[in-house]
């Protein structure tokens, strides 16, 4: 480049050669080719029709339990006939468009997206006339009171939603209380310390989950049961007592190295049960928060912040594991009032 100033809008280095010459397709110049293509496309449509008919046959002929190469025979037959037919129709139409329909490129001029200046002026004038004639600007009292009432209309709209759900009641308590037995999650049987070996993990529930009333009906069922389970589920682990470093006040929360923790992750509430016997770490399968159960459920990795709450254990007169109280810490994912609720919980104990 020379030192002299070059105009920025340098003329284009290459001139536009204009639209390329039209290229004829074999079908355009050779009628037999066109006929051939026509036959091909027609066969696609015919086969598609047959496949749809086949679909109906399969609907009544193929048994719902039959299998084909490991697939459900029905699903396979329906899908292959329907999908095959649809694909053939689609490919046929596109072939028709590409091979036989007129293929002359057309040129259309664009128009600016904006309206013309006259139109804009006219519209502005109309808007102004509208504002003027309505007195919207001149009569602020009507205007403001209208705007005010419209704004207040939002209130009923919001208030109407009030009954979507109850106000958040205290989330700090679970069904656990002093004396409630720990039961096996699957069988519902209570757990004796002698049932557990060192290194073992048992998924547990509070006994109330399996309790029945006088008629043999479960005390908890449906949603209520799910709500209880989503807070009160526990894991019971047995470690060598020397592997446990209980923090102050927790020294007697275990029974012979058996400790009980909430199963619900303090991150977003997944049930945790990936247990490493040797390291006594518990890993959440959802987001890999890892808790050290030998160290009071402390978080050692991952996005969780609060340690896994621990349930103080004892043994009842029949020798079964029981809770000595509710969880002293709040279960499940954090929420804005958690700090306050935790304080209340601390004051209670």
């Amino acid at each position, binding site marked *: 480049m020379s030192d002299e100033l070059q105009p920025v809008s340098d003329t284009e280095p290459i001139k536009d050669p204009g639209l390329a010459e039209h290229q004829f397709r074999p079908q355009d110049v050779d009628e037999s080719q066109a006929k051939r293509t026509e036959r091909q496309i027609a066969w696609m449509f015919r086969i598609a029709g047959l496949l749809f008919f086949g679909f109906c046959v399969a609907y009544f002929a193929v048994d719902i339990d039959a299998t084909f190469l490991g*697939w459900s025979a*029905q699903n396979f037959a329906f899908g292959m006939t329907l999908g095959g037919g649809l*694909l053939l129709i689609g490919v046929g139409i596109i072939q028709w*468009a590409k091979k036989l329909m007129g293929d002359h490129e057309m040129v259309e001029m*664009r128009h600016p997206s904006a309206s013309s200046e006259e139109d804009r002026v006219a519209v502005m004038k109309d808007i102004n006339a509208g504002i003027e004639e309505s007195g919207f600007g001149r009569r602020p009292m009507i205007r403001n009171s209208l705007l005010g009432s419209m704004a207040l209309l939002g209130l009923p709209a919001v208030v109407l939603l009030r009954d979507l759900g109850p106000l958040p009641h205290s989330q700090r308590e679970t069904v656990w209380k002093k004396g409630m037995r720990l039961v096996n999650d699957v069988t519902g049987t209570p757990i004796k310390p002698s049932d557990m070996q060192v290194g073992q993990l048992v998924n547990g529930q509070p006994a109330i989950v399996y309790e029945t009333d006088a008629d043999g009906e479960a005390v908890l069922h449906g949603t209520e049961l799910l709500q209880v389970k989503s807070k009160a*589920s526990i894991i019971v682990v047995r470690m060598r007592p020397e592997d446990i470093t209980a923090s102050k006040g927790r020294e007697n929360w275990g029974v012979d190295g058996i400790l009980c923790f909430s199963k619900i992750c303090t991150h977003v509430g*997944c049930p945790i049960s990936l247990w490493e016997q040797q390291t006594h770490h518990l890993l959440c399968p959802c987001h890999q928060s890892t808790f050290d159960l030998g160290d009071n459920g402390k978080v050692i990795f991952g996005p969780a912040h609060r340690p896994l709450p621990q349930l103080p254990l004892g043994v009842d007169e029949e020798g079964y594991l029981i809770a000595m109280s509710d969880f002293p810490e709040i279960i499940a994912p*954090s929420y804005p009032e958690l*700090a306050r609720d935790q304080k209340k919980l601390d004051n209670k104990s």
Partner: protein
Amino acid sequence: MSTTEQYTPIQDTGVGKKAAGPVGWLDDRLGLAGVAKKNLRKVFPEHWSFMLGEIALWSFVVLLLTGVFLTFWFQPSMTEVEYHGSYLPFNGLEMSQAYKSTLDISFDIRGGLLIRQIHHWAAALFIAAMIAHMLRVFFTGAYRKPREINWLIGVGLFSLGLVEGFAGYSLPDDLLSGTGLRFVDGLIRSIPLVGSYLEFFIFGGEFPGDEIIPRLYMAHILLIPAILLGLIGAHMLLLVYHKHTQWPGPGRTEQNVVGYPMLPVYAAKAGGFFFVVFGFTALMGALLQINPVWVYGPYNPSEVTAGSQPDWYMGFSEGLVRLMPGWESTFFNYTWSWNVFIPGVGGLTGLFVILGAWPFIEQWITGDKRDHHLLQRPRNAPVRTALGVAGMTAYGVAWAAGGNDIIATKFHMDIYTLTNIFRVGFFVFPIIAFMVTKRICIGLQRADANRILHGYETGVIERSPDGGFSERHAPLPASQQYTLTAHDRVPVLEAPAETDENGVAAPHSRKEKVRAKLQALYYRDTLDKPTTEDVQHAEEHLGEIDGHPVELGDEFQGVSETGVPRVH
């Protein structure tokens, strides 16, 4: 009928003797001929990449059709019932009606499983096609003026599509989808100050409650599809109004659009393509199992499967949540769960805000207020392309992190190391990707300039008298030379004026300085296309090669291996 005298009545034109009756009847009542006249033969340019949005459109139609079928049997209820259907392993098991009816659709309704699988595959395809379409629009600069509003509508479609997909796969109330809802519950709770209120209002009480499935159902089949439909309509209307963008090339300018008419070619191609998309998803439904809810079992808040994963399009959000350190703080007597709120709520909204804001940020930086109808090749906007790839890299890292447990177990890696790599990688890899992409773009620009100025490699090897070998170059055909140069020049940047015309310090000079800096960064290293002089100079020298070149002759048609078509 009040036919104006000076026109030939439609039935006499011979164009459509049969159509004249109904067309006349309709037009008497609707008067649509005026609109139809302009649009029936509307021209659409052709390129494979313009088909991506069409895939999204048609998979949405497939979703509507299959979704209607599913509503005939699906029962959005969380009432617990005992199962006694054809899937024997669950005989006598307690489950929600939603889950039971999903099992019934899969095992007892003929074709139910197929339609369910088509619906799920089409949903995956819908989102995938939207993302691919969005990337196409981004990397070619198709969102520039006057199409910014359509870009915003697209961002709205994308975000609603994600929510719609999530709501949909939550409906069967199986163990996997319940785990997803449990996560959403945690996410809602993490919202500062109002989290618990929102949780109780949305779930109708404590998690899981018995309201969430019916409410999601309403959102999934009515509210969100209605908004999607409206936005799609607006998206298409604007597309028609602006006319489609086109690639530069001979005869293609900012003022015209070159392509095929809507009727019949484009209508046939697009209509045929609907059947292709439907057929393709039907084959997928036949051959590829998706979301086998009977494997997972009914939802139980005390159970989860290792390796639980959301549907793929939520993977990046899941990954962000996994990467986040466990930050939580307490002040003003409130708990603030940054560990969930920042990646969960912030990650999703952040993505949409960045996407929505980009066209306006770019416009502010470049100061380019012109209308653009010609697409840019990604290489000719190196910084934008590099930013896009950096964004894709960050998304990709987050997505991979969403499967860190799977990666760790499949490749026998330490999950904590892997997570830490992703934590660092989320910030470092995009920077590397930016630098690499920008250099690649500039390299490609140089290659283009080279092809314009020095021609293409013919594949003809010549040996000079002293034994050296060289490859003969031949000039590109004019149409290709033109295509390679049909883009804007890099503007000459000016420092912002410090003072206004009266010598007083300009009020916005600080903002203007920032803008000027960003502008310089935006255009830095971008190679300008050759000037007329360059081309003339090169033309004069193209024939000059050492030795005695053999004439290639008129018959020589080039070599296709070089990527240059033989015919020119």
